């Protein structure tokens, strides 16, 4: 993660403020920064989204390609995640520097989607054992301003909501050879249901309290964080302790409760924003990268 040099006095200032539920930018301990989400920003993908949260900027592109299903799960398609920490984000990511962080984030994404209810994989199957849709979700870190996991999971959810997979039909010849036919109408596509796609909430332990959506400076004051992945119904799909400190068992239970509460609110606001953007239709003004 990008590091920021903080003096002892600044750390003490941040820690004391958090004890009083007052953070440096005036937020409370459970408040998120202002999040900007925009979908359909890249035209060559099946779905894309861009999320800006303070100084953190994430771009996700989803491409749907046809492939063979995995042997253990012949009736399902699957998702492949790739995270690229670009050198623009911070100079530490130059060359191979960002690879470790990229694999860590990709592994976390695999973990949170590793259950039956997050994405309906059976709808991605075209013909069992032979053809299925593989969704390649590529995450690009444009700018690193703290709280990467949350922003990435919001962007992935928005991109999956925006994904349009072309509808195909499998035609069988008399000899038994199968042919895949794409429908002629470019707008005839299937959409994924993102009702149960989870979002990650990272809770950083600072002093005796925990904060949601930490900035880089706050992350430097925190020794341990708990990463909880929550769905809109409050079901937890992944839990992970991050950082080089240890956590008290009682604070873990408190953090889980906060994570669930904050996660539910995050999901309702994200859903409403995505539906509102969708309802604006093709006439909406795209802000893109210059706004």
């Amino acid at each position: 993660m990008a590091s920021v040099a903080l003096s002892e006095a600044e750390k003490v200032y941040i820690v004391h403020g958090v004890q009083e539920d007052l953070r440096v930018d005036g937020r409370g301990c459970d408040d998120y920064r202002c999040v900007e989400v925009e979908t359909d920003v890249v035209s060559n993908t099946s779905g894309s989204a861009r999320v800006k949260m303070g100084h953190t900027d994430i771009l996700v592109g989803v491409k749907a390609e046809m492939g063979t299903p995995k042997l253990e799960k012949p009736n399902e398609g699957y998702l492949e995640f790739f995270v690229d920490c670009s050198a623009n984000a911070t100079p530490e990511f130059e060359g191979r520097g960002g690879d470790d962080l990229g694999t860590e984030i990709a592994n976390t994404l695999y973990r949170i989607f590793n259950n039956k209810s997050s994405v309906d994989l059976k709808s991605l199957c075209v013909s069992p054992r032979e053809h299925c849709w593989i969704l390649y979700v590529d995450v690009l870190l444009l700018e690193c301003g703290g709280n990467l996991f949350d922003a990435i999971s919001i962007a992935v959810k928005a991109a999956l909501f925006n994904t349009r997979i072309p509808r195909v039909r499998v035609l069988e010849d008399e000899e038994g050879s199968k042919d895949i036919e794409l429908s002629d109408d470019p707008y005839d596509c299937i959409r994924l249901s993102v009702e149960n796609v989870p979002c990650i909430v990272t809770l950083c332990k600072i002093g005796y309290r925990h904060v949601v959506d930490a900035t880089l400076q706050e992350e430097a004051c925190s020794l341990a964080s708990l990463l909880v992945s929550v769905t809109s119904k409050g079901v937890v799909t992944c839990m992970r302790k991050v950082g080089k400190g240890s956590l008290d068992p009682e604070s873990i239970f408190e953090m889980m409760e906060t994570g669930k509460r904050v996660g539910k609110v995050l999901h309702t606001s994200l859903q409403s924003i995505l539906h509102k953007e969708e309802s604006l239709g093709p006439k909406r003004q795209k802000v893109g990268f210059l706004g």
Partner: protein
Amino acid sequence: MPGDHRRIRGPEESQPPQLYAADEDEAPAARDPTRLRPVYARAGLLSQAKGSAYLEAGGTKVLCAVSGPRQAEGGERGGGPAGAGGEAPAALRGRLLCDFRRAPFAGRRRRAPPGGGEERELALALQEALEPAVRLGRYPRAQLEVSALLLEDGGSALAAALTAAALALADAGVEMYDLVVGCGLSRAPGPAPTWLLDPTRLEEERAAAGLTVALMPVLNQVAGLLGSGEGGPTESWAEAVRLGLEGCQRLYPVLQQCLVRAARRRDASTAPS
């Protein structure tokens, strides 16, 4: 190359026949959800490593070796205030490099090393769980290398590797605040099943959710936590964490005994007779 008619070329990819077999209906036997499998732990068995440990729990066999402290590569210059107890300032603290490897014959299917993302993830989990326990400030500009090798996966492999790594670090004489004890849990699919402590491989394969907890027993601090799956609401996960912490506390005396025996063995071998 002209046609090679003498060699019989097999298929490029091979799979074990079990994948094509009809589903075996053997459900894992019902058992007490809080039972811990008997553990065999031995420290100080590798001659070439500074510290080592072997842990066997049910069918899971893990071997762990620690080497170092040796000079860290790519050291950065740093000043800053020294920590309490004469420790090095933050920028000069030692590093812990963890490596987790699966033997190719460890699981049901042969997995050629390097195993890809999963091994890196587990190595990172090992590092995050061991760092709170090791006094890295006492090893400035040095690095400690911990490498865990999973010989056979019989369920809760990460938990066994965590415990073995902590034993190996203690055996190497590395300064630590406390031992780290790991415990695995899993939850079967279904409407309202209970969490099972220390699952076997069969229970883990059929599980809807799995969790590994690492605890520092004397300080009562959770050093590591990694879980995923359809665990249900937060109350269910909280119950699982509590069960795991209890399991870790029950395992602690066995590890203490193991270290005491290893120390006696070392004394006996170096004592002038």
